[in-house]
């Protein structure tokens, strides 16, 4: 693999990388200084973000600059506006934002300031996953430090730009990472996603215009502002620009978080970045972007890892959280575990999702325990088609249905064998295997 420029994780390895001193020494807060003192107009900031082609890193891959430009015109709509930063990283397999928040919190803070300036937001709310204690503490300490240095709060850097940053801890619900569920939770309510329309830019937090961005998307903003859109576009592929953080886990030799440009194949990533499949085994399948994206078989390992290519292969780039499964992995068991997650995390509002996620889990569980029937496979497909696409308020039902469809499509033979034999030939009895009728708490 040839060398490529890096920027996202450059500060992460430095000693005391989470402190203001280190951040400043590395040129931190220059972007916001530049924006405030030159001064830029908010429209210019949105312009450069749009030109950079940055696509949101939270899973959907929506252009970030475009999202910012959806905020209503301040002259016509005087309501206060907010930025909400989605740091509720809970997708199984995803672990990239955590690195940024723990090791480089000031980068996120500077990104928030630029985003708030561009959207004329009066405050940013960072919604951190409850289990991320260190992220929360580091970020809070960094905000306090920045506030003391006049970088957060009133009249930042002596200009008339004021912006506050507040933290909010989640309480362990995956659904609060859905943007409208996150807003409900921030408002102190149950994290039940809201129907759209209205979209957050029209009516979000406290019925005011709000933009919800992923941590990594916001983290990119200071780099784009300082180095320009052309620099950013010089990395990656034409429709997925810049670098991204890859979180790779599962059966590889070197799991972890890596900064990579778009355009590498999955094979390159597994073999050259993550040190290949462990124990000298062969690859069976991989989730390209977290457990909500469709499982791809080993035969598709040459797919190029960017938003559009993965989509063309029938899956999603998601949060670039690859989960690698070697030849000893049992797909029925993988799906049992995945389906259990969505059954547990469905908020329960929409009928299809509440009942469907449970039903899928029950079926996968029976198959994985050797109690399946051949008709179950068509039922799984039919139920998944009843749940997705876009038949519910949010995309959680899709997230449960899409991997189901992919698993049955690519690994039907494995399910059939389980059903025929009345047991899972790949089951490792020493692994924890919950009882079939064990009630989940």
């Amino acid at each position, binding site marked *: 693999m040839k060398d490529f420029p890096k920027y996202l994780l450059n500060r992460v390895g430095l000693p005391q990388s989470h402190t203001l001193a280190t951040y400043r020494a590395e040129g931190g807060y220059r972007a916001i200084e530049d924006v405030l003192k030159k001064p830029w107009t908010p429209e210019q900031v949105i312009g450069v973000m749009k030109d950079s082609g940055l696509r949101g890193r939270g899973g959907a891959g929506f252009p970030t600059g475009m999202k910012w430009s959806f905020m209503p015109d301040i002259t016509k709509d005087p309501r206060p506006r907010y930025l909400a930063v989605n740091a509720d990283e809970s997708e199984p397999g995803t672990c990239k934002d955590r690195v940024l928040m723990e090791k480089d919190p000031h980068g996120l803070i500077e990104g928030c300031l630029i985003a708030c300036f561009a959207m004329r937001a009066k405050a940013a709310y960072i919604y951190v996953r409850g289990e991320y204690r260190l992220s929360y503490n580091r970020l809070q300490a960094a905000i306090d430090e920045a506030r003391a240095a006049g970088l957060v709060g009133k009249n930042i850097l002596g200009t008339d730009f004021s912006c506050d940053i507040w933290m909010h801890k989640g309480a362990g*619900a995956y*659904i609060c990472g859905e943007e409208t569920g996150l807003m409900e939770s921030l408002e102190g309510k*149950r994290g039940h996603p809201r*129907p759209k*329309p209205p979209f957050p830019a029209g009516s979000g937090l406290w019925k005011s215009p709000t933009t919800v961005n992923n941590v990594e998307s916001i983290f990119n903003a200071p780099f784009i502002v300082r180095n320009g859109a052309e620099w950013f576009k010089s990395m990656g592929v034409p429709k997925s620009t810049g670098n991204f953080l890859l979180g790779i886990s599962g059966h590889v030799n070197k799991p972890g978080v890596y900064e990579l440009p778009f355009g590498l194949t999955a094979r390159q990533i597994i073999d050259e970045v993550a040190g290949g499949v462990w124990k000298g085994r062969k690859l069976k399948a991989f989730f390209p972007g977290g457990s909500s994206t469709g499982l791809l078989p080993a035969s598709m390992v040459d797919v190029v890892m960017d938003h559009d290519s993965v989509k063309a292969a029938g899956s999603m780039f998601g949060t670039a959280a690859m989960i690698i499964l070697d030849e000893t992995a049992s797909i029925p068991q993988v799906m049992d575990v995945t389906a259990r997650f969505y*059954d*547990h*995390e*469905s*908020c*329960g*509002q*929409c*009928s*299809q*999702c*509440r*009942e*469907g*996620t*449970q*039903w899928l889990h*029950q*079926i996968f569980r029976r198959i994985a325990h050797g109690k399946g*029937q051949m008709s179950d496979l068509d*039922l799984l497909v*039919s139920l998944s*088609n*009843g*749940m997705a696409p*876009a*038949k*519910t*308020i949010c995309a959680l039902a899709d997230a449960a249905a899409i991997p189901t469809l992919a698993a049955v499509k690519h690994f039907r033979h494995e399910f059939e064998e389980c059903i025929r034999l009345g047991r899972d030939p790949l089951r490792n009895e020493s692994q924890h295997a919950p009882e079939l*009728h064990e009630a989940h708490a």
Partner: protein
Amino acid sequence: MTKIQINGREVEADPKQPLIRACHDQGVDVPMYCYHPGLAPVGSCRICQVEVAAAPGQPSRVVAACRTPVSEGMVVSTDTPKAHDTRRECLEFLLKNHPLDCPICDKAGECDLQDYSFNEGQGKGRSSEPRRKLEKRKSLGDVIVLDEERCILCSRCVRFFTDVTKKAQLTVEGLGSRSVINTYMDKPLEGNYQGNLADICPVGALTSKKFRFQARVWNLSKTLSTCGECSRGCSISVEALRAKEVKRLRPRYNAAVNQWWMCDTGRHALAPLTRPLAPEGAVLGGRLRGAAVRGYNGLELADDVAALDLAADMLAAHPGAAVIVSPFATQEEAKAALALAQALKATPQFVSPAPNGLKDDLLHTGDPCPNRRGLVEQGFTALEPAAALAALAAAPAAVLAGERVLEFLGHEGLAKLPTKLRLVAFDVETSDIPALDVVFPVPTHVEKSGHWVNVDGHVGVLNVAVPPPSGVRRLDAQLAALAAKLAATPARS
């Protein structure tokens, strides 16, 4: 108004209302569970999905009609295979854990889930998984009992308290398929509007403790009527088992008065409507079976015509009679009483009991006189029970007329009236009042037709929901007969 197309028909739709309202306004049936016109839409049950295209020829997609605003030129189809399939899928999920205990469910017969399953659902379930086992009879206070297994989590009940009474009492507890409805901190529900939950629950999850197991709803006849518990006069439906025994009072939509709601005081006011008759041959101990006159052995049943003659004679012999009607008197009865009062040269008056302290911000006015405004407009004077008793004590004779007039005056006070008073009464039931000379039976307000005028001037209609006991005639006819008889009786004294 916005022009849209529903099932090929050009119609006008209110742009402020969701698409589902436009469909319903046009008589197009779109099923709904979580949507209720009186509550904020949440779009969670997904049963109201219809096919929508932005304009003719544009690509269509399936959307939830309750959360879709109408837009100019929109093309809506509710009847396409795609729309039906989507709804059928949704229904299958809703039925996955539903206990299907319709044979023992109070809601059966008026259950939305049952109805739409019949219309759209498939005959055979595909689930072989065990159904959820939850609490079958969880008391939520004095009025409502919850069956968690039947609940489809539409959250109408939760929103009833947040949107209508403005005091949240219920919530969804738990996550996903473990969700259940519960009160906060397991406290029992409170307030005077709990009964509405049983009405708005689209399935048999929330049922009324009072109505539970009382009747199968397909045996109930439903008659449009008006509630008499306060001067709001909520529009109601009087539901009687086989058109004989009133079993349930339910609110009926009336945009100007009560919308979809009614209070529990009114809903549970069944006792005055289901009073048993007095024993055969007796006057006391139940509803009057016929006219009664005072004889040597107290009040005795008598022939109607003879009793009327006697009443007319007494009133003719003792000029200066007072005329006091019940606050339940209908406009028609009041008109007849007015004519009688003119014939007797009396001031028309009605008993006006004191406010009962049930007044709230929603519906209840606290004034127990359902036709106060109508009576006042016809020229009747309101009289507190104590003042009325004092006036009666001083009068030579009196006519008391209308449903529950004796009850509102107070049986204790009436019993103390001097026996020289010549007292003629028309009521559903009487006690042994020494001063009472002649008494005639009258129908209750669910046994007659008529009108009441509510506190804001809206006219409420009364209809015959159950027949009055045999031989009980309308009060207005009886008062007119008495006035006619009086005119034919020469004045004595």
